[in-house]
């Protein structure tokens, strides 16, 4: 009898616990009405990747899902860097170097390559003790930033001469809160839809020869890897700045798929306050 009672007790206990500890999900999408409608923030997602990283296409797909979902509230930059961007380690087809001086410097600072790809940074901010996030968490932290009041506004206008390939860029900044003397503006060029091999471990064989690489960081337009100072004397709420840049798009890049990305970051903390994107050809 003792044995039967013990069995019964343990069985009942297990059933009881299991009833309260299982969430079996039937429909996977939340009610999305008004989720982002009110936000004036534009978030920068930096997706650390490489053409030799076979686990990265999963993260690329998530970045695309989020880019489609958040539309103009999200700017995605894919940064090829580190060992997975090697032009010699992955065999024929992987000879093109997609790394950039800026991407490598930012990688060295945040140690993205060491942490293992794929990884992403949302406005270079720390969430849950980390700057480098796995892609299952990206949407949560993007949403968190979008729910905050914008610190500033950024507006990009461009004039492009397709013959000389010169683009003149005007970036308007308007601060809604006090800025910092260490605030810097970063302007860079990204290129979309580059067809080039990519490793994908979900595929057999694992080399996808005609993979479409999206929104790749191609070059820094501002000087240096961390941008240029906006006003070393300090910035107050209400301050406005008009900044002009000139750049010639290299012939190797398809200008029809290029876009200008600008963002303002506090160089002391590296955190990004606001971002913006403008296509070269609208």
């Amino acid at each position, binding site marked *: 009898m003792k044995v039967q009672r013990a069995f019964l007790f343990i069985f009942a206990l297990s059933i009881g616990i299991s009833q309260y500890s299982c969430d079996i999900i039937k429909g996977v*999408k939340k009610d999305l009405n008004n989720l982002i409608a009110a936000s004036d923030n534009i978030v920068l997602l930096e997706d650390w990747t490489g053409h030799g990283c076979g686990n990265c296409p999963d993260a690329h797909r998530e970045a695309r899902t989020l880019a489609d979902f958040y539309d103009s509230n999200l700017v995605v930059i894919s940064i090829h860097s580190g060992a997975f961007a090697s032009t010699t380690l992955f065999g024929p087809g992987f000879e093109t170097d997609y790394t950039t001086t800026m991407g490598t410097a930012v990688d060295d600072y945040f140690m993205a390559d060491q942490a293992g790809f794929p990884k992403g940074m949302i406005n270079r901010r720390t969430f849950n003790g980390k700057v480098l996030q796995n892609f299952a968490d990206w949407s949560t932290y993007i949403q968190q930033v979008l729910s905050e009041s914008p610190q500033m506004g950024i507006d990009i206008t461009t004039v492009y001469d397709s013959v000389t390939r010169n683009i003149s860029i005007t970036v308007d900044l308007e601060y809604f809160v006090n800025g910092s003397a260490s605030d810097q503006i970063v302007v860079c060029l990204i290129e979309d839809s580059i067809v080039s091999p990519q490793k994908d471990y979900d595929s057999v064989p694992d080399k996808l020869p005609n993979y479409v690489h999206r929104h790749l960081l191609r070059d820094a337009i501002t000087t240096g890897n961390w941008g240029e100072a906006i006003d070393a004397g300090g910035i107050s709420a209400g301050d406005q700045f008009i900044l002009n840049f000139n750049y010639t798009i290299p012939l190797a890049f398809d200008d029809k798929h290029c876009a200008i990305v600008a963002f303002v970051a506090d160089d002391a903390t590296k955190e990004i306050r606001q971002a913006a994107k403008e296509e070269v050809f609208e």
Partner: protein
Amino acid sequence: MIKTASAVLVFFGFAAAQAQEIDPGTINGNFQFDVQNYFEDSLIGAPEFPSRVGSNGFLYLTYARGNFQSGVRFESYMPALQGFLREKGAGLAHRFAQYETKNLDIRVGNFYEQFGSGMVLRSYEEYGLGFDNSLDGARLRLRPLPGIEVTGLIGRQRNAFTFQLANMSEGIVRGIDADFELNELLPGMDSMRTRYRIGGSFVSRFQTDNDPILILPENVANYGVRFAISGGKFSLNGEAVHKINDPSTVNALIYKPGNGVLLQATYSGKGLGVSFSAKRIDNMDYRSERAATFNNLNLNFLPPSTKQHTYRLMTLFPYATQTNGEMGFQTEIIYRIPKETKLGGKYGTNISLNFSHVRALDKIVSADPDMGYEADFFAWGNRTFFQDINAEIGRKFSDRFKGSVTYMNVVYDKSLFTQLTGFSSTTTVHSHVGVVEGIFKLKKKQTLRAEIQHAYTKQEFGSWAMLMLEYTIAPHWFVAAFDEYNYGNANPDKRLQYFTGQIGYTQGQYRMTFGYGKQRAGVLCVGGVCRFVPAANGFGFSIQGSF
């Protein structure tokens, strides 16, 4: 830091107070400290290590008196050795108090635990790998009747590479396990020679759903049942587990439930041992945070069904269980040819044959994209992840000499395990590895061990050869040196030698080693995410002991 110091003082204060009693209790401990310097070496690709020296270390102390036990482990990373994440700091990473009687075992603080084979829950530590996923909370073990053991636990999990107690998993882990020894419980079975055991376990992870788009399960359950039968020369055990929907980074956010089955059978007779194991894993990656990757915050352990080799060139292509799905089996036969026979020789000869084969599941894309894929339970996939055929013959020839010959034929899908393809564009590595080992007893207490190894392959980095010599003067000293030569590398500039030399001294329970070596680069992949482990060149010192 002040908090840490206070905790240590309180701990030893308690121990000192107890020292005045009649039974002062006992203090035991063990420690290890490893320090390594790193030279930049562009030839082998060893990068600059900014602090030039890295070190890992720990001291683990336990105090026991009667039914009571407590312990602390102090860990230090200044900064961590290369290959671990570059953190730096020191602190109490583990502390517990425990009270245990015949029927009751209660523990608070950090603890390790395993339910069944580990597919539902396994919390453990491997200092050498920088792995520690202890739970921090409370565990209660009850033995209400002879033959019944029930374990309940709740806690948060330590992140493998962090040492701060505050840096625990976001998820909370709850679990219960029951184990029944039927021979003890059921009348008439206690005298049976065959022993029967059954068990079941249930674990649930709670993590808040903050995702703006997806409805994520906040409570994710993983549960299983198991059995074990053993009697005489045979034993058979198995476990089946099921995990409910658990979208995560590792499974690319799909809602498909997971499951796993493991079966193991062994025969062990005089001079003959046979074992067979089979395993099927489908979407069974389970962690205390859904975004966790690499070897961080693993809640379960999926046992590999392949032989774990120790010879160095046989570990060029190591196998790791593919948590997203695999099917495999392993069989091993160990036979001892009796001594004083024509084949067995004067002392007998040991023969070991081992075969393991692991393939992908037969996955097809699901009509429901949220479910990811479908896989027929009994169908093998087309892709071979890993296959290993190996044989070893070992024989003692005289009182002064014994030797062995080992051969391994390995097929290895490197895209899953190493990710670097070297100078070949193919995905699969085929390699033949041979090892000859001889142990010579030179004089009383002096032994020389020699290994000649060769790995032949056309893929990856090409063929390797290795020579190892180890000279031991018992019981204190040993000197060892080995050289790996990547002579078959397709790139002549990369045909490099990696030399390592070591000297060691052992005194009772303490052991010190000092050495210099070059380590080849590689990529370490666990749980679908890979980390590049750079090459290294430098001196190392290690001390370890227990008291």
